[in-house]
């Protein structure tokens, strides 16, 4: 009992030590507090922003960009992955093009995106879409292609065709790989958003950080970074929860392998 409690606590030991060292170093004032604020002052300015409701507005703006971009990009990547996984014609037609676009660092398109789409929401969402599309495409495609052919043959023997074959065998077989893609895409999603929000804007965590830089509010810059970290962790926890629910069978299956 005691041991499990300690095990649960273990992941937090290092973050807590870092916080304590940070606080101690900051309160020694080796560097001026305006450049190196203590965790407590970060927390205080965070509280002020929460109290004024400002923080919620910014988090909401960033979160909705992330979710919309993830949904659109995820769906396109998923659809392309399924299509190319199932059909060789579609694969020959599309994969080379997709791979070429995939190899362009999507953030390099930032200037072009600004010129074409302007600086409003669509530019930021477009970048997120582009960022999350490929990891989901690659993993969905790979998942479909690596489903055990023995199972597919068995399914055909038992008269499964078309949609039924897909629903009962191909999709569940590809699901573990698709979830790997989703979790990877979530990381890319935040990364893209951080960069995209440096495009002039009036809302969002990126705005909060950029604006704070203008006024040398180091505590708010650090706060923004911490919020990104927390949101990233939250997204990963949600994805993991979904994965565990959808792949209940996989846990015992993997244990046995």
């Amino acid at each position, binding site marked *: 009992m005691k041991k499990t409690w300690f095990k649960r606590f273990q992941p937090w030991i290092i973050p807590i030590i870092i916080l304590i060292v940070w606080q101690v170093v900051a309160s020694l004032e080796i560097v001026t507090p305006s450049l190196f604020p203590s965790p407590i002052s970060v927390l205080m300015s965070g509280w002020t922003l929460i109290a004024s409701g400002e923080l919620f507005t910014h988090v909401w703006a960033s979160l909705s960009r992330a979710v919309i971009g993830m949904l659109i990009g995820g769906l396109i990547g998923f659809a392309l992955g399924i299509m190319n996984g199932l059909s060789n014609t579609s694969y020959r037609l599309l994969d080379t093009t997709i791979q070429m676009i995939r190899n362009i660092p999507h953030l390099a398109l930032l200037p072009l995106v600004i010129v074409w789409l302007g600086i409003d929401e669509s530019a930021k969402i477009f970048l997120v879409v582009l960022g999350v599309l490929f990891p989901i495409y690659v993993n969905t495609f790979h998942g479909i292609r690596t489903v055990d052919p023995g199972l597919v043959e068995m399914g055909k*023997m038992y008269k*499964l065709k078309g949609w039924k074959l897909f629903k*009962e*065998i191909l999709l569940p077989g590809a699901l573990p790989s698709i979830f790997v893609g989703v979790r990877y895409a979530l990381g890319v999603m935040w990364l893209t958003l951080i960069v995209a929000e440096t495009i002039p804007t009036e809302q969002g965590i990126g705005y909060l950080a950029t604006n704070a830089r203008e006024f040398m509010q180091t505590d708010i810059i650090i706060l923004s970074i911490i919020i990104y970290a927390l949101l990233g962790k939250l997204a990963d926890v949600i994805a993991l929860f979904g994965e565990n629910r959808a792949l209940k*069978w996989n846990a015992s299956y993997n*244990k046995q392998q």
Partner: protein
Amino acid sequence: MGSNRVKNEQAIQIDIKSGSKSFGDKQVLQNISLTIERGQFVAIIGKSGSGKSTLLRLVADLETLTAGELLFNNVPSKESDANMTMMYQDSRLLPWKKVIDNVGLGLDGQWQGKAEKVLDSVGLLSFKDEWPSTLSGGQKQRVALARALIHEPSLLMLDEPLSALDAFTRLEMQNLIEEIWEGLGFTALLVTHDVREAIRLADRIILIEDGHIAVDIRVQAPRPRHFSEHNLALLEEQVLDRIMFGEKPEKLKKV
């Protein structure tokens, strides 16, 4: 013959007329002619690469003859709606479906009651809500057997279904398969490299060598068969000699 076997009107008769199969330049089966009667239990034996698995896959419609004809109940196989199911060496259960949903794979409507009945007949009803990964090898094959039986097959194909099991489980499964076949009377086609298994289960043993039917003998000993009986042990030895050393088939006597 001489057994209390059920006559099954649904059971299928298989005719292969001058059937050949080649993959590219490689001829795997050459001019095979074979009639398998309704409800017969036929074992196909042979070394690896002899073409025995190809023969089974042809009947299962997983491969197509390069030349010749395949008939089910005197109708070309492609036009026939024969109800065939197959058991594989690996159970091929879907790991993401519970045992009972594996049994009901591909069925529509109210199949749960029937699935429970079939699971009961293979002795695994209490496992119906387990994940396949929690089952032993023998239990998995029982579920695979239940999945094959729920379709009330007119032909059951068995592709070395017991070769991955331990000796005791294999004996148990042989008894179970024999019992179910005697009860339901479908035509059964078993590919195996275990001569003793073939003799224990089959009415007829076909030895395939280099794409030909080398030996075709009937086993008429009463069931259940025990290897304490001298003639069965002798037959096993003769068949093995034939496979290993190419002894003349004339030496093989009917038992």
